[in-house]
């Protein structure tokens, strides 16, 4: 039995998991149109590789970029590119972003797979294939998997941690995935082991998912994976957070400013494992994912395997529609860390693990105003990152960004525990998010001004140089002229005017001499 540790704080929440678990995993039908944002990951923007009017096949790469932190986008089904235009996307701003719109033709014709020779593939080759498949972390952060693997590989990994925890209320997509595709998860774990060569592997599953645990154990028994263990951990929010899970399993804390692989650990979500298996075995890129749709305003909550780009309205239809359409309030992600959506036109993207459909009345809206902080300290007790939320609040409110950073604002994982327990109902996380985005904007502006300074100084230097060169040229010319002049004094012929005058003088003199005798 693996020894477990505890992280500071955390909460026991009402799970609300059973609603979406009454129905089995279903395959979502294809909508008429798919909307694929060019950027569905953390990193740089992709550029479209297709033009309006092109026919695309399932699995064909339609957008990519050459940055190292990149995850290309693939066509989830066959069809024709209808447009490349701005469309509302899943973003807390509710704004639009560039999307590739595909008119689905319903044939679902696949592109020719290029089956890799897996037996001989080394770590580098496998990472390349994972990159080409556009795989990102499916736990919610959507960080591209291949650069993470490259860096993990370079650092050397002691323990590989597979995250099947899923601690937020309502969300059950990983639970469903583990029940349905345990063998694929395990084979994916095997590939990760081949790439990272860890000394041991821990697969963490919360104790409220006994069926998933059993399915995974059965799948593990069918494979020969070295030093691999399924660990059941107690259900405490937010034990699915990477740093919290590491602390539970190893007792280690990831130091400030470092990442898990700096201390020899590597975390990966179970959904990502399935995506890796499919990419390596069938050359199938990331074109679908399991999505939970749940909440108190949806007729038939459940889990669907959905093609990326499917509008949420289509998913809502599959789930029997809203109970009360007028008061529907949509959240992407869970009730603790999710963000509200501008409407149901928004498409499913790689990061969409859950669509929460709530009644407007039941959502604890961030109120127009809140009560004063009474300094009760409850937020500090529950903070899983061991921060001082109250201090962060004061500094964020005073817009003292530097002070907030001194209190390690950027170690806040925005889990929402502090806001949930605050008796004054202060939307603490919103303060932290605002502070973080102000600081990031300032950093960006600073980087920009640094570049402007460099360009300005370079220009000044160039102008200076040009001036010097010009002066040098003039000096040389002047010198050459003076030299010529000096030389001209020595031989009379050098100056034609002087020569002519002298000739005239000589002639006059000669005439005068002739006249005198």
């Amino acid at each position: 039995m693996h020894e477990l540790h505890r992280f500071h704080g955390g909460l026991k929440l009402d799970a609300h998991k059973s609603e979406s678990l009454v129905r089995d995993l279903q395959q979502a039908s294809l909508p008429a149109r798919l909307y694929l944002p060019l950027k569905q990951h953390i990193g740089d923007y992709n550029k479209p590789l297709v033009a309006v009017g092109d026919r695309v096949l399932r699995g064909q790469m339609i957008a990519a970029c050459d940055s190292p932190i990149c995850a290309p986008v693939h066509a989830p089904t066959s069809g024709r590119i209808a447009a490349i235009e701005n469309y509302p996307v899943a973003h807390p701003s509710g704004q639009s972003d560039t999307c590739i719109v595909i008119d689905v033709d319903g044939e679902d014709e696949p592109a020719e797979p290029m089956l890799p020779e897996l037996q001989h593939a080394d770590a580098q080759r496998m990472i390349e294939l994972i990159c080409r498949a556009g795989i990102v972390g499916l736990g919610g952060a959507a960080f591209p998997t291949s650069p993470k693997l490259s860096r993990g590989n370079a650092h050397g990994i002691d323990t590989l941690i597979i995250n099947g925890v899923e601690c937020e209320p309502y969300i059950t997509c990983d639970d469903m995935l583990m029940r349905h595709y345990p063998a694929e998860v395990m084979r994916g774990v095997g590939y990760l082991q081949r790439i990272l060569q860890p000394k041991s592997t821990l697969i963490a599953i919360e104790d409220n998912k006994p069926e998933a645990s059993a399915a995974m154990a059965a799948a593990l028994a069918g494979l020969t994976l070295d030093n691999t263990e399924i660990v059941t951990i107690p259900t405490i929010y937010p034990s699915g957070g990477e740093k919290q899970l590491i602390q539970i399993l190893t007792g280690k804390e990831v130091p400030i400013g470092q990442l898990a692989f700096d201390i020899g650990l590597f975390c990966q979500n179970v959904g990502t494992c399935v995506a890796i298996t499919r990419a390596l075995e069938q050359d199938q890129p990331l074109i679908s994912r399991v999505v939970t749709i749940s909440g108190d305003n949806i007729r038939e909550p459940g889990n669907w395997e959905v093609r990326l780009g499917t509008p949420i309205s289509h998913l809502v239809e599959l789930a029997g529609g809203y109970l009360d359409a007028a008061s529907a309030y949509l959240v992407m992600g869970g009730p603790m860390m999710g963000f509200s959506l501008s409407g149901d036109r928004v498409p499913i993207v790689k990061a969409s693990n859950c669509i929460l459909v709530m009644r407007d009345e039941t959502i604890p809206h961030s109120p127009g105003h809140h009560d004063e902080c009474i300094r009760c300290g409850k937020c500090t007790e529950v903070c899983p990152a061991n921060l001082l939320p109250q201090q962060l609040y004061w500094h964020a409110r005073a817009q003292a960004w530097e002070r907030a950073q001194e209190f390690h604002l950027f170690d806040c994982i925005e889990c929402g525990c502090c806001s949930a327990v605050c008796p004054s109902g202060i939307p603490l996380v919103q303060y932290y998010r605002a502070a973080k985005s102000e600081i990031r904007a300032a950093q960006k502006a600073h980087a920009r001004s640094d570049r402007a300074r460099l360009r300005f100084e370079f220009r000044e230097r160039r102008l200076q140089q040009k001036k010097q060169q010009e002066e040098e040229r003039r000096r040389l010319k002047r010198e050459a002229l003076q030299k010529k002049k000096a030389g001209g004094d020595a031989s009379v012929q050098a100056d034609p005017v002087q020569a002519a005058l002298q000739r005239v003088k000589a002639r006059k003199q000669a005439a005068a001499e002739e006249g005198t005798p």
Partner: protein
Amino acid sequence: MLLAIATISLMAGLFGLILGYAAIRFKVEGNPIVDQIDALLPQTQCGQCTYPGCRPYAEAIANGEAPINQCPPGGQATIVALADLLDTEVLELNAEHGEHLDVPLLAVIDEQTCIGCTLCIQACPVDAILGAAKHMHTVIADECTGCKLCLPPCPVDCIEMVPAPQTIEDWKWTLPPALEPSQHA
């Protein structure tokens, strides 16, 4: 007596050598306070402060020749940062020099009207305009600081300043609305 004089002279000579060496070895190039001030200025190079660029203004501030409130692109945030650095009083932005805009500006050349005179290229302090004589010019949007220095030299008035386009990446979370006065008070 002699020994004391000799010892003191020897020590004086020795320390002189050490100081002389340190003066060469640890010589500070340039004026560090100017660098620090320059780092806080927005590097728009617009000259609205009446100095020909951010660095000359930084030098003027360091020499005590200019007040810290002459930089409209930096706005109040820059003034506060400068006041913090120099431990002086926070001033209001001097309106004579211009107005602070929240969204940075971007120069856009109307490429249909441009006659390719290269005057704007010569005026741009950060080399953000691309083009050649009698060929169309264009602005490298990522490098434009919005200084407006390209506007006056243009003989056909084909350059326009527009607010820099904001993408979804530039969006910021906002602080919750300010606290209402407590009802229990």
